[in-house]
């Protein structure tokens, strides 16, 4: 099947790629090219991921033994708070949409850019400003409230809460504007011939994510504003002694933060759809089911926030409704997992690095999802809430799911973004370390959690010796896994950077993909396409013999 978009391999043609079209720092900082903005986001996200990861290593060193002997309790509380805040706000939420999404979405749609390129640039700079506020909070006294900022502790502690809430408030607008940009681009700038059901599923996932970003993030902004005012002016809305209600804060907070976890996972699911198809050269199983499930997850996800609050004192009826709806969101999620597995049936599977990560996603995210059932079930959640079971659950979904999908997508589109191929050998070596390291780290935490170990504990030696020994056994295993995981991550960083300098150059379509981004050069020219691309087939129409050189 041929395409209507003309492509020019940079080695042959005369138009430079987006990387060399203009030069100088200012041409990057003031660019309106979605690809450059995506790259800048990528660098920032990876940088903050390293910071968050180092904080995690600090946590793991402390937790390997029961006594609190590595850092003081206050320092530890700041470690886990900042680890959470950085990972949630600076890494996982923007990771796929702002870096991979910004880069790939217009290309997959056959567009020359997003609808509002200047707004896109503004999104990036707003992100940087928000990040600076958060970093300032670190150096000006730290933050020790937990990333969840529960009142009354957050209104009475003397750490840098307001700097952090201001940072998160600002970051929210970056997220909102990116979502707004994507929705308009998807509605108004699809190539001719690209109906909604010919869009790649990655686009569907970004669409669902963007809807959540627009509807949920403003409520977080207000929540943080109310918290800031409470701290600064003592309004009293969350303060029991002044006539307020601390549980009200939890409702406000989770109304955003639960949909936020779907912001974190839906784009990852979109990436997986791209990978299991392209790397097995097989059409997706259940296109509509997956597309509509994404939207269903986004919408139902707004109705389940109270499942974080089953033991908070909210009414039994409210808890029951939240539990029921939580199971409701599990069904479309299961449908997606089954559909991805079914996609591999009678495919031609290549165990490339992206494909390996996609398989790891299926393994780890399924564990994450199934453990969510324990938490959505009222009676068992009572025991498991605020234990290491919850920590293991959300790391399996957000990291084993979202972050693994991000790494998978990064490897899948690396040749497109950089024009280079990384070393498959090192890719596979790092994959083994990451997968095994992750599994060991977090599976051990399930066991500690079901056995009753609470989370956010700096030390765990003020309890019965039998349980202390049990917790220490599993926590030390977890820490070893974390060190292995860390090594794997660093190896990824090294070979990716190495590929930029010495990697083999890539052609336009190293994997033989069928969506429009593979019909431009690798890396693309500044305006993506010459002329107007036309979409003549679905994104996964592989059922023909096809020879694509790498």
């Amino acid at each position, binding site marked *: 099947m041929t395409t209507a978009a003309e492509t020019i391999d940079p080695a042959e043609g005369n138009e430079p790629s987006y990387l060399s079209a203009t030069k100088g720092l200012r041409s990057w900082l003031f660019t309106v090219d979605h690809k450059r903005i995506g790259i800048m986001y990528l660098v920032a996200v990876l940088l903050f991921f390293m910071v968050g990861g180092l904080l995690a290593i600090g946590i793991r060193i402390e937790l390997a033994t029961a006594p609190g002997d590595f850092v003081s309790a206050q320092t530890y509380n700041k470690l886990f708070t900042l680890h959470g805040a950085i990972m949630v706000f600076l890494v996982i939420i923007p990771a796929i949409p702002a870096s991979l999404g910004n880069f790939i979405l217009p290309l997959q749609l056959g567009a020359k850019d997003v*609808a509002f390129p200047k707004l896109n640039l503004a999104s990036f700079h707003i992100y940087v400003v928000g990040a600076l506020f958060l970093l300032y909070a670190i150096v000006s006294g730290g933050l020790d409230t937990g990333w969840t900022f529960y009142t009354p502790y957050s209104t009475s502690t003397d750490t840098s809460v307001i700097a952090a809430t201001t940072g998160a408030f600002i970051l929210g607008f970056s997220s*909102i504007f990116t979502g*707004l940009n994507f929705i308009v681009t998807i509605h108004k*700038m699809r190539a001719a011939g690209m109906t909604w059901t010919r869009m790649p599923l990655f686009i569907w996932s970004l669409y669902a994510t963007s809807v959540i970003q627009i*509807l949920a993030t403003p409520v977080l902004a207000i929540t943080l504003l*109310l918290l800031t005012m409470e701290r600064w002016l*003592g309004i009293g809305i969350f303060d029991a002694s002044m006539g307020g209600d601390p549980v009200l804060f939890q409702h406000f907070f989770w109304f955003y933060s639960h949909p936020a976890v779907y912001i974190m996972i839906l784009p990852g699911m979109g990436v997986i759809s791209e990978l299991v198809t392209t790397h097995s050269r097989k059409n997706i199983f259940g296109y509509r089911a997956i597309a509509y499930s994404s939207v269903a997850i986004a919408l139902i996800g707004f109705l389940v926030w109270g499942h974080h609050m089953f033991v908070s004192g909210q009414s039994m009826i409210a808890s029951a409704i939240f539990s029921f709806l939580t199971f409701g969101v599990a069904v479309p999620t299961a449908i997606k997992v089954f559909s991805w597995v079914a996609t591999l049936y009678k495919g031609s599977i290549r165990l490339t690095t992206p494909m390996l990560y996609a398989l790891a996603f299926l393994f780890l995210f399924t564990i994450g999802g199934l453990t969510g059932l324990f938490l959505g079930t009222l009676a068992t959640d009572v025991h498991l809430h605020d234990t290491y079971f919850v920590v293991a659950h959300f790391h399996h979904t957000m990291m084993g799911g979202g972050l693994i999908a991000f790494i998978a997508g990064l490897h899948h589109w690396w040749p497109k973004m950089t024009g280079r191929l990384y070393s498959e050998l090192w890719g596979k070596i790092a994959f083994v370390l990451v997968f095994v390291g992750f599994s060991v780290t977090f599976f051990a935490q399930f066991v500690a959690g079901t056995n009753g170990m609470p989370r956010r504990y700096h030390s765990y030696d003020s309890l019965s010796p039998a349980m202390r020994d049990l917790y220490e056994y599993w926590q030390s295993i977890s820490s070893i896994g974390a060190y292995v995981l860390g090594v794997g991550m660093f190896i990824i960083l090294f070979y990716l950077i190495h590929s930029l300098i010495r990697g083999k150059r890539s052609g336009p379509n190293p994997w033989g993909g069928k969506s429009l981004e593979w019909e431009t050069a690798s890396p693309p020219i500044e305006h993506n396409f010459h002329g107007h691309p036309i979409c003549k087939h679905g994104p996964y129409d592989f059922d023909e013999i096809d020879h694509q050189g790498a």
Partner: protein
Amino acid sequence: MSEPVENSVTGHRFLQHHFFTARQQYDSAKLGMWLFCVQEILFFSGLFMAYAAVRFFYPETMLAAHEFLSVPMGAINTVVLLTSSLTMALAVRSAQLNLQKNLKFHLVITILLACVFLVIKYFEYTHKIHAGMLPGKYYAGEGLAGSPWIFFGLYFLMTGVHGIHVIGGIVVMVWLLIRARRGDFGAEYYTPVENVGLYWHVVDVIWIFLFPLLYLVK
């Protein structure tokens, strides 16, 4: 609303490089502004939820404290904002019909009315500050039942955030005025005027909810 008139295949001089037709750009900008307004409404709805929670759990606080608000001033502000929405709509219509003088005139009136709104709010705020009706720990008033510092916290926050949006609207309208004086707008390109108009209507609608909930509720 009528669509922009296409006067050439390549579109007007403000057509951006990544759009293929002027129509595509117009539609995109409009959808973008609608989404921004949806987001704004969600933003304020968070505050309305806080209001609802306080009202539901502490009704005596709400009822006692809101007596201190001046209904006449609030009512005048409502009329002022509604009128400004009218003049803004007239400005959009003028641009569509290529009536440059009317466009500028209506923009100026809208800006002036928005300023009047802010001036009245200034008087309301200073009155409360003098009486010690302040939010939270700064509350120094007397004679009100319940926890009035919570009510005034909400009052200042809700009207304050709304006021910031009014100021933002004024800034953007001044920018429109500058562009209008440059002759940027006409029948084939009035997108910014229309979209700012949409934003201004949302700011107005939010006040329409704020006024009865804060001032009139019994």
